[in-house]
């Protein structure tokens, strides 16, 4: 019997797991994919919104503003990439009113360091911004984070603090069993727990609806992106939003924490929640709108495209808390943007509520720190020489584009929860995330995975669930 089972290891599930591990208890995370951070958390804009955008008085506003302020400490404790880079909301209109409304909303939400500046002042900071921009809201406290690296860091730390993670566990049903809950997995296994936390992202409505009479509805909304080579990092170091118009929300051009340029997202309501295919129309729309912000954006600089699914709730706000009709069910529904920015605050709040409910005592042995995998590309000569002397694998470069060593890749596999497939390696150490997109290192990484996991090459996958890479041996 667990004290608490967390369904889903996106940023919400993993953050709550870590916060819970500050208390004494028996905690388990069940995830349907092969790894943490395989849902929306791996494919979003990665902006730590300052909080001026959310409607005053909503949970979105409350958790966003609080959460954003927690990032600096969290990122230094857990060593994931985060940077306060500032953001502009660009207006192409001579009328300043919409920007002023945004500024006032931000101030009411408790956001500091907001101002309105002229187009010329914007271009002094970011010269590639279009001449058509007349004014902008400047939010100095806006930041960027690598969302999957954050989720991985948090999950590793939760695991260090004795939270258990199990993968390829898709929950198909939740049932009440006397004074506790029972979750049933697709593979026939089941688990019992006093509290079940529904942090299943776009599926959170369906899981809740299986057991609760209070029904929710998530409308999955796809957002597509293009990512540019690091070569073009000069385009902007500030996040560039467009002021929403009647034509829609506009799209952003922003740096990532690894100096690529991210362009997107589109917004399209879809039916299949697992449909993360990019589309010809979507990508074209993204590009056309991005050109309004940066007219010189180079199409030849694109190295990859991807899409993420927003868990848009028809209630248009987060739902966070115990179900009012199912004892022990704790819901996180409709955690769309700014869900990532809000996640530290949401997790702290939820864990506290759950710990109070279960009357858990503080875990005196909680370890707050997690250290990142050492990256050869960031090290100075002295440390690097020492490291290679200690472990020669750090001198063997596997990924040429991002300069990633065999040592880093092995470490990614050996950590807990560790990488089990190509995508898992990619998200942990960036091997294959550069401009050749795994062209050269795929065969080598396959081999390392096979050795480390003790699996045949033919059983190594791109992302679990049958995404095998090889179809047997050649003719002898």
């Amino acid at each position, binding site marked *: 019997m667990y004290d608490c089972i967390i369904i889903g290891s996106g940023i919400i599930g993993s953050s709550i797991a870590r916060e819970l591990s500050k208390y004494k208890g028996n905690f388990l995370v069940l995830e349907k994919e092969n790894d943490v951070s395989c849902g929306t958390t791996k494919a979003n804009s990665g902006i730590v919104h300052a909080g001026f955008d959310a409607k005053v008085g909503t949970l979105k506003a409350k958790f966003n503003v609080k959460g954003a302020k927690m990032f600096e400490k969290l990122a230094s404790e857990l060593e994931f990439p985060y940077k306060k880079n500032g953001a502009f909301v660009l207006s192409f209109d001579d009328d300043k009113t919409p920007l002023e409304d945004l500024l006032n909303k931000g101030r009411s939400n408790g956001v500091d360091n907001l101002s309105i500046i002229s187009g010329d002042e914007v271009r002094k900071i970011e010269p590639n911004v279009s001449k058509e921009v007349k004014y902008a809201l400047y939010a100095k406290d806006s930041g960027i984070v690598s969302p999957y690296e954050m989720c991985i860091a948090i999950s590793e730390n939760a695991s260090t603090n004795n939270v258990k993670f199990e993968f390829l566990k898709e929950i198909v049903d939740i049932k009440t069993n006397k004074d506790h809950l029972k979750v049933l997995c697709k593979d026939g296994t089941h688990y019992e727990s006093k509290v079940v936390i529904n942090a299943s992202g776009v599926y959170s409505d369906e899981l809740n609806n299986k057991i609760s009479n209070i029904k929710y509805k998530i409308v999955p909304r796809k957002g597509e992106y293009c990512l540019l080579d690091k070569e073009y990092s000069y385009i902007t170091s500030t996040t560039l939003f467009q002021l929403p118009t009647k034509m829609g929300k506009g799209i952003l051009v922003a740096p990532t924490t690894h100096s690529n340029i991210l362009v997107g997202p589109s917004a399209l309501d879809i039916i299949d929640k697992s449909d993360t295919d990019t589309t010809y129309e979507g990508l074209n729309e993204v590009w056309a709108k991005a050109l309004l912000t940066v007219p010189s954006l180079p199409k030849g600089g694109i190295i990859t495209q991807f899409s993420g699914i927003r868990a848009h709730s028809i209630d248009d706000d987060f739902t966070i808390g115990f179900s009012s009709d199912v004892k022990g069910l704790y819901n996180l529904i409709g955690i769309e943007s700014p869900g990532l920015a809000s996640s530290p605050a949401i997790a702290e709040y939820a864990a506290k509520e759950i710990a109070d409910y279960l009357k858990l005592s503080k875990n005196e042995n909680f370890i707050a720190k997690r250290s990142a995998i050492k990256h050869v590309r960031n090290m100075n000569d002295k440390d690097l020489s020492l490291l290679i002397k200690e472990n020669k694998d750090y001198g063997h470069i596997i990924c040429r584009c991002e300069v990633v060593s065999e040592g880093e890749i092995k470490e990614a596999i050996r950590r807990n929860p560790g990488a089990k497939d190509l995508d898992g390696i990619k998200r942990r150490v960036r091997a294959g995330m550069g401009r050749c997109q795994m062209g050269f290192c795929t*065969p080598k990484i396959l081999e390392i995975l096979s050795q480390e996991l003790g699996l045949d090459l033919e059983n190594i996958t791109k992302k679990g669930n049958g*995404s095998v890479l090889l179809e047997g041996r050649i003719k002898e």
Partner: protein
Amino acid sequence: MEKHNLVIVGGGPAGLAAAISAYDMGETDIIILERESKLGGILNQCIHNGFGLHTFNEELTGPEYAQRFIDEVNKRNIKYLLDTTVINITNDKHIKALSTSGLYNIEAKAIILSCGCRERPRGAINIAGSRASGIYSAGTAQKLVNIDGYMPGKEVVILGSGDIGLIMARRMIFEGAKVKAVIELMPYSSGLNRNIVQCLNDFNIPLLFSHTVIDIKGKNRVESVVIAEVDEKLNPKLETKQEIKCDTLLLSVGLLPENELARGADVNLSRITRGAIVDDNLMTNIEGIFECGNVLHVHDLVDYVCEEAKEAGIKAYEYINNKDINNYSKTEIICENGVRYTVPELIIKNNDNIPLTLKLRVGNVYKKVKLEVKCDDEIIYSRLRPVVAPGEMEKLDLKPDQVLKLRNANTIKVYLRSIEE
């Protein structure tokens, strides 16, 4: 800090040929740094025949061809380090390299960059669709099959008719896979004609020109691709959509010179070739840093790579031995009317008249044209070509009197002239 006269980055055919020629000129303090565990570069995975017709007058496989150069390097006792990746070069020619035995800091008098090129990935051509497994660059598939002995898939569609794609079409058939089609965006192939005949026609593999892949389907592994014809502006005509079932998509959509190191050393790169901008000594804007082979511009034939590399070796030797090879001003060649680029791009102004070869590529298929070089107002070179195509590099061999005019011109133009004019 270790010191060497000549450091060669990359032990592919270019690096090896450069080392041999520098040595034969008299330079003995040479070191080749190679990140793989074998010399030979990309040739190691090209196990098909067809290499070396120009150099050795016989047909060799890639590894056999490479071995000839490796043997010559060994005969001369030229030093090399394997499993050693150069991670940084500065503009004052300090080199940082990593291997399992540690970190090397090397100071060089001259550097030859011969790091080859890599394949353009899916993202670079913006194909929408699923991110399932089963999408490979043709070169990766070649490595998996030829070196590791594994099949990347059974039912294959190939996008792009570059040479590697063509060669892999035949290879996959030999291994029992089905190759359903080769899809080419342009109305012509960027591959060599002989490869189209030997790798596709002989196996009845359809080659669809003016088509592209517009969608990839399949949640976990690729299940099909959707293709469509394109219009003159290369935009897909959605009404011509058709779906082809397959479990694998191979991409052969071009190669990009690998110039991270050059960029880090402040070497000026060409926006067209993506290689360095070099003068006719193959020297970059950074004194003492040379480029040759596929890192400079993508070659069709390894023989041409080696010819160019040999030249780089000689020039690096001359530079090291203070033959003042850089004390002259340079004239930039202007490419016009169908000519995309030339290598070299800069011509040194002096009175040398040693024969010189200009290499160039055109931007489209043109029939019945003259390839011309104009120095100021004089056409110094003119050659009739029944057909020129982007897939085949053109070489203009200039004789001593032409070279002299070239070197003394204030403007140099290279262009195509249609002979109907």
